[in-house]
């Protein structure tokens, strides 16, 4: 397997995913797993954006003066939905954390899983 610059650019994002998964699997409280999920979410979105930019990094807008190398608009358009969905998930999880936080303010799994 040869390492092209496109693949090299993805390495930080993959590292971010691994960090997020590590956080999710090792968190002791609800808030930490919530934030870890957000880290994985962001990393996934960045991967989409970077892959779309592999063809070229200029804006794909048709104007009078045309650019030479466009980035692919298709994945970028699609990832907008994923951003909104990730935001909605976070909002719902925060609402639940708020409700559960009244009874056990530390939100530790040890207390909640009884």
């Amino acid at each position, binding site marked *: 397997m040869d390492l092209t610059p496109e693949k090299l650019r993805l390495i930080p994002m993959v590292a971010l995913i691994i960090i997020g998964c590590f956080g999710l699997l090792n968190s002791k409280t609800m808030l930490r*797993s919530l934030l870890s*999920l957000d880290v994985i979410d962001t990393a*996934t979105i960045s991967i989409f954006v970077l892959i779309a930019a592999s063809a070229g990094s200029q804006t794909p807008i048709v104007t009078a003066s045309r650019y030479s190398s466009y980035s692919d608009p298709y*994945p970028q358009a699609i990832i907008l939905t994923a951003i909104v969905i*990730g935001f909605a*998930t976070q909002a719902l999880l925060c609402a639940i954390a708020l409700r559960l936080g009244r009874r056990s303010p530390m939100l530790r799994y040890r207390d*909640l899983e009884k």
Partner: protein
Amino acid sequence: MIDYQILFPFLIFLPALLGFVGCVIPKITFPFSVLMLLGYALGSFSYIGSNTSYLYTLVGEGGIQFSVDSYSFPLIFGSCITLLIVFGLFFKKFTHYYYQICLVLLSALLISFTTVDLVSMFISLELLGFSAFLLIADRNDRKSLFNAFQYLIGGGLAMLIYLIGVVQAFTFTGSFLLEDLVKAPETALCLIVAGLLTKSGVFLCGMWVPNIYSHANSQSSAVLAGCVTCAGIAPIARMSQILNPISDSMIVIGVISAVIAAIYAVFERDSGRALGWSSVSQLGIAILSPTYACSYAMQHGICKALLFSTLYSSTVDGSSDSANINIKNDINSKLSVTNEFLRVVVFIIASLSIMGFPFLAGFITKNWIKYDIPYEAKIIYTTAALLTSTVYARLIFDRIKNFIRQPYARSIMTLSRASKNISDLFSSSQNYILLFSIISLIVASTAAPALFTFSAVQSAIVSAILGGILFVSVVGIQADEFVKPVTRTLDLVGAPFLVAALLLANLIYLKI
């Protein structure tokens, strides 16, 4: 001739539209939504078994592709019937915005049954996850809120894993279509399948199922078991039809899931959790054969919805709080002796149907799958069927025991009240629904008369009897020692990773 390019998108988004309108004017919209569900059920029922398929593309060239075909019709029919059963039996117990959520859920289900596009699948599964989250949290106590939290965080992670798989496939194929996955690398396939398996709740990924089914309201459990877990089945069936490595791995996963979840169910003492484990086992059987997966999931979904609706008597709803309120106004409970009796009968019939007893709907679908899978898997499949009959023998036993223990149970037996009991039978609309479901489960078995060979009927009856005997022999084992409920969040969240790794190892090195 109506242009189906416009008609089908309208039909898909109609439930969501009705759901949102229903938030504003709830009383007026409810009858319309019931009518719409009836229409969908009848419409899809007339297409089951025919090879009709409509392909269309939303918003012109390069848009989102949909395919309404033989995979979608059974599942649409099953979900509509499940929702109708829940609407009919639990209408008086609905909390605010309950049926509206169900309608939005139906819209998400329709998208996931019909789409052949990976990104639309992602969006519909996320919408489905949100609706299911609201249904689980509907009971609104601390434990169900925490269950909903676990479901959402596990489902969210699974969908992110799925999305990473999708983007990796995109770099190799250049499109998001399901049929282009043939050119995708193994890693991408593993990630996509692990996400789908988590949503449909098959073995390791499905450990959230028993926790949630046992604690949620019975109407929510019925909807979850009948519709939500079916959503992953259609794309998995489509994928294993075109990809040979996936269909081979699905047989391994399905067989493991069917046997181990059934063993868990046998040793489980709580009826709700046993039903949840059995649901995991049944969906494991469903993914064995891509051709009949959807029919099997449909039959299982309808039977499970009936089982969850009738698991508890109508006055006691599994939770102690509502029981106390209902005992005070026991004017209804005296009237509903026949209703209770009917509920027990429906419970038994639906259990027998899942066991695959002859002359019921389950017998047909079980045999379709049985003749479709390779010989090596057939032996383990029979084992799973035997364990399933053990589970349901115990469930039927417990249900009848609970019924007889009630003070009013004896009046159903006395002959002097027989005429009054019969007149009670036609007094409420719930009884009509229950009676109709019994009859239709029996009538459905006439769909394929060719399957009623002597050996098949014999083996089904023998397996049911053996299940009963096995139940008597394991009933004394103190299983609480070694079957502990899995409730830790770590276990629920980490399962998709494990399954993705196992699948990858299988696809690259083992090549089963």
